[in-house]
C-alpha cells in the first residue's frame, strides 16, 4: 500500500474533480462548475487555464476580467508553487495514459517507433497552436483538446469524446510510449515551461541510491531522472510532473518531495 500512496491520492483528487464537474451538470451542485479550461468554485472564484486564455488572446479577443484573473491565479500557482502538477494531480487524461503505460509494462509491449519522436515535439506544437490561433482567429488547441473532450464525455455523455480517448489510449499502448502526455500534449508543454522554477520539486539523494532503476521503470518522463545515481540534487526539469511515483517505489528512501528556493538552470 505504501508503494501506491501518492498514486491513490492522485486518483482520488483527479476523480473528485470529474465527480464534482459531473455533479455540477447533473445535479446542479455549485461546488465546482465548468471544465478544465474555465471553472468556477462555489459560484464565486473563477479559475482558468492560462494556456487556453493565451490562445484566446492571440486569436484577437480580450477575454473578460474574471477569466483573465482566473488564468493569472492558476498561472501563479503552478509557476511559483506546483510546477507541472496539473498533469499528474488534476488532468483526467493522466488516468488513461497511466493505465496504458502500466499495461505496456505488464504485457511487455515494446514498440520502437519507425521515426524517433522527440519529447520536444510538444513545445513545437505549443508554438504552432499559438500561430494557428492568431492566423485563423480561433483558440486552436481548445477546439481539438482531448482533455476537454474527455471532460465532455464524462460530464455531458459525449460519445465522440470517448472515441478520441480510445485513440490516445491505443496510441500510448501500441505506438509510442508516453505518447500523449510525454510527447504531444501542448498543455503539458506549457506547464513544463512555466513550472521549471516552482518551489515543490522531487529531491534525490545519491548517497542512499542503490541504482536499482525502479524509479526509471515507473517514470513517464524518464529523461528528467538523468541525475539519479550521479549527483544529489532536485529533479530540476520542468517536464517532471511531481507525480511522486519515483518516491513511493524507491526502497532506499533516495527520493522525496522537497522545497527548492534557488534558481539554478
Amino acid at each position, binding site marked *: 500500500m505504501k508503494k501506491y500512496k501518492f498514486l491513490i491520492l492522485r486518483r482520488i483528487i483527479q476523480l473528485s474533480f470529474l465527480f464534482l464537474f459531473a455533479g455540477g*451538470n447533473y445535479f446542479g451542485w455549485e461546488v465546482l*462548475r*465548468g471544465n478544465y479550461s*474555465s471553472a468556477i468554485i462555489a459560484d464565486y472564484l473563477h479559475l482558468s487555464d492560462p494556456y487556453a486564455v493565451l490562445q484566446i488572446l492571440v486569436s484577437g479577443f480580450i477575454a*473578460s476580467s474574471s477569466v483573465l484573473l482566473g488564468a493569472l491565479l492558476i498561472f501563479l500557482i503552478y509557476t511559483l508553487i506546483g510546477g507541472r502538477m496539473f498533469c499528474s494531480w488534476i488532468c483526467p487524461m493522466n488516468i488513461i495514459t497511466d493505465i496504458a503505460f502500466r499495461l505496456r509494462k505488464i504485457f511487455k509491449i515494446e514498440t520502437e517507433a519507425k521515426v524517433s519522436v522527440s519529447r520536444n515535439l510538444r513545445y513545437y506544437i505549443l508554438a504552432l497552436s499559438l500561430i494557428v490561433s492568431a492566423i485563423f482567429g480561433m483558440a486552436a488547441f481548445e477546439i481539438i483538446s482531448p482533455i476537454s473532450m474527455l471532460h465532455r464525455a464524462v460530464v*455531458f455523455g459525449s460519445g465522440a469524446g470517448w472515441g478520441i480517448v480510445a485513440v490516445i489510449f491505443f496510441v500510448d499502448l501500441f505506438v509510442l510510449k508516453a505518447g500523449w502526455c510525454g510527447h504531444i500534449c501542448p498543455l503539458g508543454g506549457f506547464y513544463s515551461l512555466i513550472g521549471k522554477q516552482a518551489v515543490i520539486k522531487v529531491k534525490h539523494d545519491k548517497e542512499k541510491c542503490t541504482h536499482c532503476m525502479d524509479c526509471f521503470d515507473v517514470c513517464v518522463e524518464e529523461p528528467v531522472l538523468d541525475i539519479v545515481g550521479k549527483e544529489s540534487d532536485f529533479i530540476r526539469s520542468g517536464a517532471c510532473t511531481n507525480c511522486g511515483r519515483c518516491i513511493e517505489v524507491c526502497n532506499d528512501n533516495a527520493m522525496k518531495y522537497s522545497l527548492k528556493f534557488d534558481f539554478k538552470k
Partner: protein
Amino acid sequence: MVSRRKVIQRVLEGAVFVGGGGLIWGKSIKANSKADYVLRPPGALKEKDFLKACIKCGQCVEACPYDTLKLAEPGDGIANGTPFFEPRTIPCYLCTDMPCTDSCPSGALDLKNLTKEEEKPDVMNSKMGLAVIHKESCLAYWGIRCEACYRTCPLIDKAITLDYEVNERTGKHAKLLPVVHSGVCTGCGMCEQACVAGKAAIFVLPLHKATGKVGDHYIKSWEKEDEKRIHDQVEKEDDEKDVKSAIDYLNDDDLIDD
C-alpha cells in the same frame, strides 16, 4: 559543430512542420466551424467573435434549465465544444434571469448584448436569429385556420402579427396570415417548435442569413432622420473630389482638338 547540411535539413523540417502542420490544423478547425446556420444562446457575440471568445467550458449548457443548449461534438459540423440549440427539438424559452448568458465567464455571451441604452438587460432584446415563414407550406397561407406560431410567440402581436386577407378561393372566408417583424423577433424558435407542418414552415435562421441590406445610396426621403444622410453624404463627397475640375472638364485644353 553541426554540419551545414544538418542545419539546412533542420530548417526545412521546421518549415514543413509549421507550414504543413499549421495549414492542416487551421484548415480543419475552420472547416468544422463553417456552420453558417448555427443558432447561439442569448447575448452571443457575432459568430466570428463568438468563436474566438468561447472557452468551451459548457457552463451555459449546465445553466440551461430546459436542456435547450447543447455542446457541439466532432461531426456536428459546428466548432467543437461550443453551445448551440435546435429550436425544432427544444427552443429557447427566454428565461427572464438569463442563466446561460449570466454564467458565461469569458464574455462570449454578454449581458451587454441584451441591454439597450441605460436599461437593465432584458432577454427580449435577444437576437439569436430571425423566424422566416415559407408561405407555400404554411397552412394559414393555404387559407386554413392555424395560428400555432402566433399563439405560442412570447411576443405575440409584436414579433408575430396576423394579417387579414380575403380568401379568394372560397370568396367568403378570411385568411389569418402570420407575419414576422424582424425588429422584434428574438429568434427563440418557439414558433418553429409549435408549427404543425411536418417540416416546420416557420423556422429560425441566424440574422446574417435571414436579413438583407439595402445599399447606402438608397435613402428614405419620407423619413427625416434618413434624409439627413444625403447632406452628410454630399459634404463628404465634396471633400474627397476636386469639384472644380469636374465642372470645368469640358473647357480643358486637352479635349479641344487643335
